């Protein structure tokens, strides 16, 4: 059996693979199947709408051309596109999106990550990440203002002099005050990260959101 073709193919090749898939793949799927998966529209909340609106006022022409007006629909559209930009520019190879319960991470970034947070369309496939050249981004929303992000994406060294993060000038029409469709979408996506949490954690210059606008 151990040296026969059938043994190698069926037991080693197929059997053990399926066993592992059951143990490591199907078990978590069954464990989390009761948590409903949200769509991009369903994860739009007041905080991200506030930021989205802020973008529309700060960059009216660019915003108008890219997304028209502020609505749950256009905001979800921006989140979807922003996530695509985040993936295809390889941001997730330098930034993680989960806070571990160890190594003081919850003191640096905020609440430890929970499964519910990832049960939505924008985490297909999940963006946990495996490397941190830059900081974790899962609680990044509202830590910096929209224009900070715009300048930072245009040229990171302008706001963070030693940054090895690459420039993303093609997300703009020539200057940091003119983000294009992809740029606006990326800023929206980054501001959305962590916006579902009640509290914002300790960080350099954190400012509370003004929620009265809504």
């Amino acid at each position, binding site marked *: 059996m*151990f*040296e*026969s*073709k059938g043994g*190698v*193919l069926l*037991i*080693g*090749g*197929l059997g053990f693979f399926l*066993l*592992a*898939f059951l*143990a*490591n*793949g199907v*078990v*978590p*799927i069954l464990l*989390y199947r009761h948590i409903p*998966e949200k769509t991009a529209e369903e994860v739009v909340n007041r905080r991200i709408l506030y930021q989205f609106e802020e973008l529309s006022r700060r960059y009216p022409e660019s915003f108008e051309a890219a997304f028209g007006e502020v609505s749950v629909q256009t905001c979800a559209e921006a989140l*979807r*596109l922003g996530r*695509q930009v985040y993936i*295809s*520019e*390889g941001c*997730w*190879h*330098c930034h993680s999106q*989960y806070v*571990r319960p*160890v*190594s*003081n991470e919850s*003191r*640096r970034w905020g609440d430890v990550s929970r499964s519910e947070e*990832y*049960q939505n*369309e924008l*985490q*297909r*496939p*999940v*963006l*946990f*990440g*495996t*490397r*941190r050249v*830059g*900081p974790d981004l899962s609680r990044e929303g509202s830590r910096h203002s929209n224009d900070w992000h715009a300048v930072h994406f245009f040229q990171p060294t302008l706001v*963070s002099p*030693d*940054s090895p993060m*690459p*420039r*993303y000038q093609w997300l703009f029409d020539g200057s940091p005050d003119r983000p294009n*469709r992809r740029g606006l*979408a990326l800023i929206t996506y980054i501001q959305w990260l962590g916006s579902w949490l009640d509290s914002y954690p300790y960080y350099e210059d954190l400012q509370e959101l003004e929620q009265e606008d809504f």
Partner: protein
Amino acid sequence: MVADESQTAVPSIDTRRLVDRPLVLCYYFAALAYLVISMLGGILMALQLVRWNVLEGIEWLSPGRWRMVHTNAVAYGFLANAFLGTLHWAIPRLSLRPVLSRSLSWFIFWAWQFIVVATAAGLVLGPSLQAEPWVVKLASRWHIPLSVGAQALEWGETPFWIDPLALLGLALVAVNFMAPIVRTPGPMYVSLWYFMAAFVWTFLTYAMGNFLPEYVVPGTSAGAIAGLFIHDLVGLFVTPLGWGLMYYFVPIMLKKPIWSHGLSLVGFWGLAFFYPLQGIHHFLYTPIPMFLQYGAVISTIAVELVVTTVIINFAGTLWGRGRDFWDNLPIRWFYTGMVFYFLTCLQCALQVTLTFQKLIHFSDWVVGHAHLVMFGVFSMWLFGVMTYLFPRLLDRQWASRALCEWHYWLSAGGILVMSSDLILAGIFQGYWWAALLPWDVSVMGSRPFWIIRLVAGLCMAAGVVCFLINIAWTARAGSRAADR
């Protein structure tokens, strides 16, 4: 044993007609071309990290995109092509039968090159098309997270429309190679166990990773599957093919059988059982349930014990023939790779524990580990195989032994420096982060390590350049080989 038969070639079988030599050569040239491209990508990213990237600001040279080209070109361009080429040499000679169809082989060759080039083009150019109205329209029409650029699965960044094609390609590869294997009567030689299992595993792994987390499950469950995918791609595609080749080439070159058949059995079945169970160890301390994480940790430690038996087996085979390590270049490549393999697995048994994970996860330690495995082990083995086969494929001797030596020493030295440097950097980074120092401290502190990594990477690349020059000289002017 079959390996011996192919060595002393049964008179009635002409091994020259069994192997499609031009095909093997084409696979090797393609593999080396992608290796060069991949290394350029690595160097670009390394330059970016130390902020010496003068090409910054050019959209299609964005380091983030090229980092993905770096890993994908290595996995699907270099390793896959080099393995496929070598299998076209080894399997017909082991089974004494040709592959299913010569034209199918060539079709697969070209189809695979198309897949790799399309992947690279998608990764580099895809993102620029993202905001184009037709792309947006398609995406919203089908209501799937559709992207013309990368997909968010490490090693599976391949743009979504290529996935089914690649899967079809893998199925054809399996059929083409299985034909001679199943027609061979009697029990099979060790290499064939590994190859057969690898064909099944690669197909299943690719299918699982490229479809489930994208289209079926989101979130944490997708994370578990993604972990399984990254892990199985190394463990069930690269590793079994690599070891299968070692079981084939080492006895041929030393002209003696493998030391212990029993240990070969333990090695294969131990790997087959324990290796696939470990996927989740890539995402320890995520929201994935803790009992699954413990299971992955334990089976990882178990597989290191299995690995030790394999290493003992190969050490036993070399025993008493230590001289060959110095004189026989392919043997030197192989056994150096095995030493690195043992080191990687030792490292793995440590880093997989939750204690180590606290410190080194997310850091350069992991990158050091990845280079040690992919370059220090599998690329080394493939360089050894190529060093052995190029003279036979070109019917000449190596034009320059000195360049062969340079290739070896630059590669071995480069990877040793690169991986120890990055592993050390990882420990520092882990402590800087846990100490809640500002992020810049870890970035600036890593700079010296990143500069050393860049230099080591340039050495490895220089080794490949030596190899390429040697191949060119050999092809043009080398003397006719006396041996076979």
